[in-house]
């Protein structure tokens, strides 16, 4: 049912007014509603797929894992990374070739440990979220900084997970302000 509704939404979004933004405002609002609802339902589809995939290699008694996506990462806002001190980030690579990419997650803490599945500690950096972004109307987020790390070689059409935990002591803080310099 979720998939069927998702497909219907994608069908509606192919109308030329939806693509170019030449619809009336109330229609635009309705498109946004349809898209939001179905992206959210799409989340359930992906979550159950990833969960089955991951549990395939575990014993049958393992409980399913819940995966949440953050639709407001574009404004540096994500409840799950902001409110939790320990969380797992799973990156699914939709490309047919391995991808190395930088991951940015809005957080509240000042120091985090990021480990891949083999326990290898990843290099991290904490960068402040710019004030104009923090002040975006409607942005309900406690995050003032972003945690940055590199996800190396996520397999093609596959996933890679990282275990992230907040460090108690402010260790490995790579936050530096250089407001006096005018060049980079």
């Amino acid at each position, binding site marked *: 049912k979720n998939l069927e509704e998702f497909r219907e939404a994608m069908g509606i979004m192919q109308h030329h007014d939806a693509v170019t933004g030449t619809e009336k405002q109330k229609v635009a609002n309705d498109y946004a509603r349809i898209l939001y609802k179905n992206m959210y339902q799409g989340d359930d589809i992906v979550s159950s797929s990833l969960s089955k995939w991951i549990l395939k290699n575990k014993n049958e008694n393992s409980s399913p894992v819940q995966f949440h996506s953050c639709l407001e990462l574009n404004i540096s806002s994500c409840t799950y990374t902001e409110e939790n001190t320990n969380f797992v980030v799973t990156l699914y690579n939709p490309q047919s070739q391995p991808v190395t990419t930088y991951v940015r997650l809005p957080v509240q803490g000042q120091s985090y440990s990021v480990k891949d599945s083999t326990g290898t500690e990843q290099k991290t950096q904490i960068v402040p979220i*710019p004030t104009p972004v923090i002040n975006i109307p409607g942005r309900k987020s406690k995050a003032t900084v972003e945690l940055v790390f590199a996800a190396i070689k996520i397999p093609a059409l596959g996933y890679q997970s990282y275990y992230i935990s907040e460090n108690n002591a402010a260790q490995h803080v790579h936050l530096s302000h250089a407001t006096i310099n005018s060049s980079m």
Partner: protein
Amino acid sequence: DSALFNITVNGNGNVIVQDKHQDIEYTQSFHYYEGAEGNNKVFLNRSSGAYIFRPKTSDIKNLTNTGSHKIYKGPLVDEMHITINDWISQVVRVYNKENFLEFNWLVGPIPVGEHIGKEVITKYSSNLKTNKIFYTDSNGREMIKRIRDFRPTWDVKIAEPVSGNYYPVTSKIFINDKKRSLKLSVLTDRSEGGTSLRDGEIELMVHRRLLSDDAFGVGEPLNEEAFGTGLETRGQHYVIGGRASDVSSIVLKEKKLAQKLALRPWTFITPVEDITFEQWS
């Protein structure tokens, strides 16, 4: 000496970039056009709106820089946070060992207090000699050659020199300097309008707020609001320069970058408050 870029911000809030390895210099700046406002009774007196981009004059307006900038450096990324005014700011990023620049812009809410619609653009002005030629993509497929004030199949007289030279940019626009074999490309994270109105320049429209309907059917001005004010939009441009002679290498790099922008990995979070790494592993 090993640095790839030298990046400075001048008094106008413009970003000056020296791509040291490629011998390319460019300045990135924000400007806006004022939207035309007509009576919509005859074609030549139509307003700028959802369907058409029609600036009141061909002149771009400059912004007064009332903001500031800060630099943050670290082991993975160096960032310059630039605030130009109350409604335009951006972050310029250079990731470790990457040979491109990321411009992460935030534009809006566009002020229309004086009842003038505005169409905001960002411009990359380089030292490349481009002889009226630039290239835009076609739904992410082939690159199409565009020549300023020219159409390949008929003798055109451009009546509106700005909008008459604007083309859709689905994901990429580039210019090249044939003599110096240099190329400058801008990759976008969404479809935008783009052009090259002067040699060496790339111009992309990032946000619009207009106050009159253009009489093409929608019956409303392009004036979206949220939280009682105009919309804010945040997006990214990746800018990459390279030697055009090294075609295979730069095409491959750009292709990979474009795919990174368009097909980013999906991020999923699982809270594991009571689970240790060993248990999770």
